[in-house]
C-alpha cells in the first residue's frame, strides 16, 4: 500500500509515473481521447501583466508544516491587499507521495496552480511538461539575484521551471559532553573543518567514549540515498559527467569515496540501524539525542526536533568534514507553476512576490530555512531561534557542489537514486566491494530513465 513512509518528498508511487502510464493505459483501454483532453497543455500568455484589477482564484500546495501554512497564508493576504481580485488558497500536499499526488492532479486537469517541490523532484516535472517554463513571466535578468547553483538547478534546457524559495543543507551536529570527553577541538570556520582523516580518528575516539557508535548519518530511507553524494564530490569524484548522461563514478576517486564511507559502517562508527534503506528520521535523531553517538551529520530542518529533547548546552553545530574540497547536501524547495493552471501569469507573479528579498527573508527567519538570494546569503539573518547554528548551516550551504546539484535535478534522477540506494546499501552492509559497487552504479545509471 503505502508509499507513505517515504521520508523525502520524492515519493515512490510517483504521481508523475501514474500520470505517464495513465496515458498508455488509456490507450490500452481505448480511452485515449479522454486522457488527451486531460493532459492538453495550457497555453501561456506571454508578457501578460498583473494589475490591481486582475481577477484570479489560485491554489498553492505545500508540505504539511503548520508554521509554513501560516506564512503562505500571510503572503496570500498581503498579495490580496495589492491585488484585491486575486485569492490564493493554501493547500496541503501529502508529501510522502508528492509525485503520485501531483500526476493524478495533473491527469484530472485541476492540479494546484503553484506547487512547492524539491530539487530532486523538479527535473522530472520540467521534462514531462507538468511544470511550465516561467521565462515569459520573468525579467531577463531576474535570476541574477539568486545563488548561481540554485538558479542553474531550477532550469532544464535553459528554461526556468521553478523559482528557488529556500535551501537546506547538512552540517555536523555534535554533543558537547562527548566532545569534551574525547578532547576534540571543534572547527570554528569552514576552512578549519575536519579532514576525512581527522574525522575518522575522531569518530574512533567517540565510539570508545559512547561505548556504542560514533556518528549518525541523515539517511531517511531509499529515497534519500543521494545524501551520500557530497562525499563523492568532496573527494573530487563525479556521479555523471557534465553531459548529464555518461556515468563517471567508476573511477579511483569514486571507489575511494565509497570505500571511505563503507569504512564508517564496517568499523561500527555509523550505527548498524542507520542503513540507507532502513533508516527512519526519528531513529537516526534518537541515536544522537540518547547519546549513542556523539556526532550526527544531518540537515538544519531537524534542529527543532533535537531541541525539543536535548537542552541547548548539550549540543551544537559545526561544519561537514571535508576532503579535497568541502561539500554538502542539496536540500530546499522551489515554487513552480503547473501546466493546468488557468492563470499562469498571476501564479508566476505571486511566486515572484513570495520569493522577493523581503518575503524570502521573512520566510527563512520565521520558519528556519536558508535563503537562496545572494544578498541574503551573505547577510546574518535574524532567525527566530538557533541563529548561531543557522548561520553555520548557511555557510555550509555555499559548499553545495554545482555539478552535484546538476545531477540531482536530472529528469531521471529518481531512477538514478534507486540505483544508488540498491548498490550503496549492499556495499555498506558489507555484501559488495567498493569497486564492484562503483561499477554497478555506473551500469545502473546507463539504464535509468525518467
Amino acid at each position, binding site marked *: 500500500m503505502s508509499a507513505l513512509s517515504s521520508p523525502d518528498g520524492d515519493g*515512490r508511487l510517483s504521481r508523475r509515473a501514474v500520470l505517464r502510464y495513465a496515458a498508455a*493505459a488509456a490507450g490500452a483501454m481505448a480511452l485515449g481521447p479522454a486522457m488527451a483532453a486531460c493532459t492538453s497543455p495550457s497555453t501561456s500568455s506571454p508578457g501578460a501583466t498583473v494589475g490591481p484589477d486582475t481577477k484570479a482564484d489560485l491554489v498553492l500546495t505545500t508540505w504539511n508544516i503548520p508554521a509554513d501554512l501560516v506564512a503562505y497564508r500571510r503572503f496570500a493576504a498581503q498579495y490580496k491587499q495589492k491585488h484585491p481580485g486575486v485569492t490564493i488558497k493554501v493547500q496541503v500536499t501529502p508529501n510522502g507521495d508528492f509525485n503520485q499526488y501531483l500526476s493524478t492532479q495533473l491527469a484530472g486537469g485541476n492540479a494546484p496552480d503553484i506547487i512547492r517541490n524539491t530539487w530532486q523532484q523538479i527535473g522530472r516535472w520540467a521534462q514531462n511538461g507538468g511544470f511550465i517554463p516561467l521565462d515569459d513571466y520573468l525579467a531577463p535578468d531576474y535570476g541574477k539575484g539568486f545563488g548561481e547553483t540554485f538558479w542553474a538547478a531550477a532550469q532544464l534546457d535553459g528554461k526556468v521551471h521553478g523559482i528557488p524559495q529556500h535551501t537546506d543543507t547538512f552540517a555536523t551536529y555534535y554533543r558537547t559532553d562527548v566532545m569534551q570527553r574525547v578532547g576534540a577541538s571543534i572547527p570554528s570556520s569552514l576552512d578549519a573543518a575536519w579532514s576525512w582523516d581527522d574525522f575518522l580518528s575522531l569518530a574512533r575516539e567517540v565510539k570508545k567514549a559512547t561505548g556504542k557508535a560514533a556518528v549518525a548519518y541523515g539517511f531517511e530511507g531509499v529515497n534519500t540515498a543521494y545524501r551520500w553524494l557530497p562525499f563523492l564530490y568532496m573527494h573530487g569524484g563525479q556521479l555523471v559527467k557534465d553531459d548529464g548522461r555518461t556515468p563517471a563514478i567508476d573511477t579511483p576517486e569514486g571507489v575511494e569515496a565509497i570505500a571511505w564511507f563503507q569504512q564508517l559502517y564496517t568499523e561500527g562508527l555509523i550505527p548498524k540501524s542507520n542503513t540507507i534503506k532502513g533508516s527512519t528520521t526519528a531513529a537516526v535523531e534518537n*541515536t544522537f539525542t540518547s547519546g549513542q553517538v556523539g556526532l550526527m551529520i544531518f540537515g538544519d530542518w531537524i534542529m527543532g526536533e533535537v531541541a525539543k529533547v536535548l537542552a541547548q548546552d548539550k549540543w551544537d553545530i559545526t561544519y561537514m568534514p571535508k576532503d579535497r574540497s568541502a561539500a554538502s547536501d542539496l536540500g530546499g524547495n522551489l515554487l513552480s507553476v503547473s501546466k493546468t493552471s488557468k492563470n499562469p501569469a498571476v501564479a508566476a507573479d505571486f511566486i515572484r512576490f513570495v520569493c522577493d528579498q523581503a518575503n524570502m527573508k521573512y520566510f527563512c527567519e520565521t520558519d528556519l530555512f536558508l535563503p537562496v538570494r545572494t544578498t541574503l546569503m551573505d547577510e546574518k539573518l535574524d532567525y527566530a531561534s538557533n541563529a548561531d547554528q543557522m548561520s553555520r548551516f548557511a555557510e555550509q550551504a555555499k559548499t553545495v557542489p554545482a555539478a552535484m546539484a546538476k545531477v540531482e535535478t536530472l529528469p531521471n534522477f529518481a531512477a538514478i537514486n534507486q540505483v544508488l540506494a540498491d548498490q550503496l546499501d549492499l556495499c555498506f552492509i558489507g555484501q559488495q566491494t567498493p569497486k564492484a559497487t562503483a561499477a554497478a552504479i555506473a551500469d545502473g545509471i546507463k539504464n535509468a530513465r525518467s
Partner: protein
Amino acid sequence: MTSAISRERDPSIRVEPHARRPHRASAGARRSRRVARVAPWAFISPSLVLFALFAFAPLGAAVVLSFQDVQVFGGGTWVGLQNYETMLTSGLFWTSVWNTVVFTLGTVPTSAALGLLLAVMLNRRLPGRGIIRSLYFLPMVVSGVAVSLVMVWMFNSDNGIVDAFLQAVGLPRVDWLSSPSWAMVTVILAVVWGRIGFRMVTYLAALQGINPALLEAAQIDGAGAWARFSRITWPLLNPTTYLLIVLNIVFSLQAFDVIYVMTGGGPGFSTTVLIQYIFRSAFTDGKMGYASAVGVFLVAALLALTVLRSRLSRRTEDLT
C-alpha cells in the same frame, strides 16, 4: 478457491432449488422459470458492473501493458514478449521470487498454527478470556502503515525497545532490521503479529462448531487429549485451515506496506519481494510495462497454485 467451486459441483452437497421444482406446463410455472432465469442475473448485476469497471477492465489493461514498452506521456509501443524475457533473465526478479517464497512460507503456516494454538487454548473457561481474546484481535484493526511505523521503531537495532529488553534479561542483542539474515525474520514477525487475531477468531469459531458429543465419546473410549485433537478436531478443521491458508498466501504475496516502511526492501535486497519489485519497477524505475508483466506473472502464479491445490485434493479424494 477453485475447490470451493468444484465442491459445489459435487451432487452430494445440495440440490439446486429450481431443479427440484415440479415442472408443470402451466403459464405460472413458465413465468416463474423465466423469472428464475433472470433473477440471478439481476442479483449479480450490481457486482458485475462494479467488477467490470474497477477490476476486470484494469486487469485487462495491465495484461495489455505487459506486452508494451511504456514511454512518458506517449503511450506504449508493442514489444511482444520482451518484458517477460527481461523478467526471466533478471537476477533481481529471481531474488524477489525467492524472497517471496521465504516470506510466504514464514508467514502463512506460522500465523495459522499460532492462531490454532491460541484458539485451542482459549476454547475453555478462563478468567478474563474476553479481554485476552480482544488483545489478540486488536492488531488486526491497526493499519499496516501504523504497524510498520511503530515496529520499525521497536526493532531498531541501536535504540529499539526489543533489544533493550533482550539485553536487560541477559540475552544477546539482535540486528533485527540491519542484518540481511534477520530482516526477513523481523518483517515476518510484524506480519504474523497483525494476522494472528483473525486466524484465532476463525479457528475459535470453528472449534465451537464441533459437536462436543464427538469428543466426549472419544474420551470415554479412552482417547487422550492429543489423540482427540489429531483424530477428531484437526480433520474437522480442515476446511477452515484450507481457506485460511489460501487467503494467507494471497495476502502474503500482496503484503506491501510492512516491508516498504520497515526495510524498504533492504538491507541490500534481502526483503525485496515481488510486490516490492513491481512497485519500484513501475514507479521509481519508470517501467510500467515491465512491472505489469511481473504483476501478470504473480497473478498467474497464484492462480496456478490454487488450481494445482484443488486438483491434488480432488485426486486424493478420489483415491480414498
